[in-house]
């Protein structure tokens, strides 16, 4: 029940004013600039862009600053801004085979055309605090090596050629756009992938982990993980041709999973797919595992009742803005609702006491 109540304006204004003061912190310390955030807290910026579902580094940096580093709050700000933008059009599908890769690894094949390139990774570090970073003005320069511009074909395409891998066919279906139409269940893989790509990293990580621990087990190998820059091509109606309108960093993950066979088809490996804005490999990997778990019906697998197989459960709870909106609203005044609960329980207790006396 909602009843309009007035009051609290001054308290709210003063609370926000204090919040702004605290956000600035100790004024003897320089104010943090957006350039510093977008250059030095890159992975935080990438997470905000991916879950905010809007690729714009400057805005993501601003959101992080405004939210005092609370990334879900920053994502909320970016999502809210996103809704104010005019949607010009849809891009052509990105061609990740032409990615300028910073990183490209495969856990299934050692020798791959183009090679295994580790890129700027935390893997193989010892996770020890680096006290050298306490010293200011560190500016390390990493080595370069002569390269040849050979193509880097997707690793799993080799399995495709042998028909060992389920082929992902383009059936020319128009994807659902969950920003334009609400999701209804059962939904399509296109809607699921869009929801997962902007879903909460922590939620996806936990669910993906649950599949590894045996809830909807579908033992995944990382066929390939690549991070790099791709062109975004857009058809320009006033010109009648396409141009590259943007260059963005994407993380793509393809997993190779247990094979399935049936009476009409011999067993094949199947794929889980993750594609996420920015350098976000934990998220892309988790997305691929969950995508694969959610494909149980299409692949003729049993439903084991695992959370990661339940598309309605996964998709309607993976969005951290919906989740936090509903969760946090219970902090706001519910005086009237609670008053009615209170009156009800008093009445029930009074009746119960009378009955007990009888």
């Amino acid at each position: 029940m909602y009843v309009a109540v007035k009051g609290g304006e001054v308290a709210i204004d003063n609370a926000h004013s204090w919040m702004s003061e605290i956000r600035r912190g100790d004024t003897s310390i320089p104010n943090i600039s957006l350039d510093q955030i977008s250059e030095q807290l890159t992975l935080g910026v990438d997470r905000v862009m991916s879950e905010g579902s809007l690729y714009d580094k400057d805005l993501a940096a601003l959101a992080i600053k405004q939210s005092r580093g609370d990334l879900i709050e920053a994502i909320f700000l970016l999502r809210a801004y996103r809704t104010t933008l005019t949607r010009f059009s849809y891009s052509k599908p990105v061609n990740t085979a032409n990615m300028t890769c910073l990183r490209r690894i495969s856990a299934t094949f050692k020798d791959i055309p183009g090679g295994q390139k580790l890129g700027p990774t935390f893997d193989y570090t010892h996770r020890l605090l680096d006290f050298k970073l306490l010293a200011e003005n560190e500016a390390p320069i990493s080595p370069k090596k002569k390269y040849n511009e050979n193509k880097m074909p997707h690793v799993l395409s080799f399995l495709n050629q042998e028909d060992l891998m389920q082929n992902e066919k383009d059936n020319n279906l128009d994807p659902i756009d969950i920003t334009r139409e609400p999701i209804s269940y059962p939904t399509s893989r296109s809607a699921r992938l869009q929801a997962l790509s902007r879903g909460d990293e922590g939620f996806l990580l936990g669910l993906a982990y649950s599949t590894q621990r045996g809830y909807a087990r579908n033992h995944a190998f990382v066929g390939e993980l690549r991070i790099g820059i791709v062109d975004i091509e857009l058809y320009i109606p006033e010109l009648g041709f396409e141009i590259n309108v943007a260059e963005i960093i994407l993380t793509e993950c393809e997993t190779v999973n247990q094979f399935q066979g049936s009476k009409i088809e011999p067993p094949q490996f199947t794929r889980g797919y993750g594609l996420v804005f920015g350098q976000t490999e934990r998220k892309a990997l988790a997305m691929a595992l969950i995508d694969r778990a959610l494909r149980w019906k299409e692949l003729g697998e049993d439903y084991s009742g695992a959370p990661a197989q339940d598309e309605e459960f996964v998709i309607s709870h993976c969005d951290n803005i919906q989740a936090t909106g509903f969760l946090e609203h219970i902090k706001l005044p519910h005086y009237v609702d609670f008053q009615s609960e209170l009156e009800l329980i008093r009445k029930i207790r009074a009746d119960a006491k009378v009955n007990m006396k009888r």
Partner: protein
Amino acid sequence: MIEKRKSWMSLLATSSQSDLLNLWEQKKIKVNYVWLRTPEIGSIMAQGRMGVTGDKFNIGEVTITRCSLKLNCGTIGHSYVQGRSKKKAEISALCDALMQTKMSKEINKNIIIPLEKIKKDNKDKILSKAEATKVDFFTLVRGESD
């Protein structure tokens, strides 16, 4: 002509605002024009393919600014550029228009070619650094050999 135009428009769209503004302001090019569409900030939805080659799906949006203008000589320039800079969109549309006029040599030399070089250098840096992180495998022989 279309291929060339695609190429310079793509370059202008994806170059950094500061690089483009620096090059443009260095040349102090004066042109008169009228707006056909003043700069407008919006977004496009980027799409991917399921499992690389399958059906399309929506990844998320990218901010884009667009505008159109007409030079006094009647040549029309368009721009669709990454980000939210109206200035970048304006200069890009001016360059697009001027590249279709007799000033094309000058614009090409002072703006397009330098932007191409910046782009090539950035790509070269990424690829050469990535190459330095390429794994060279070697196999350790275990057990006794005969």
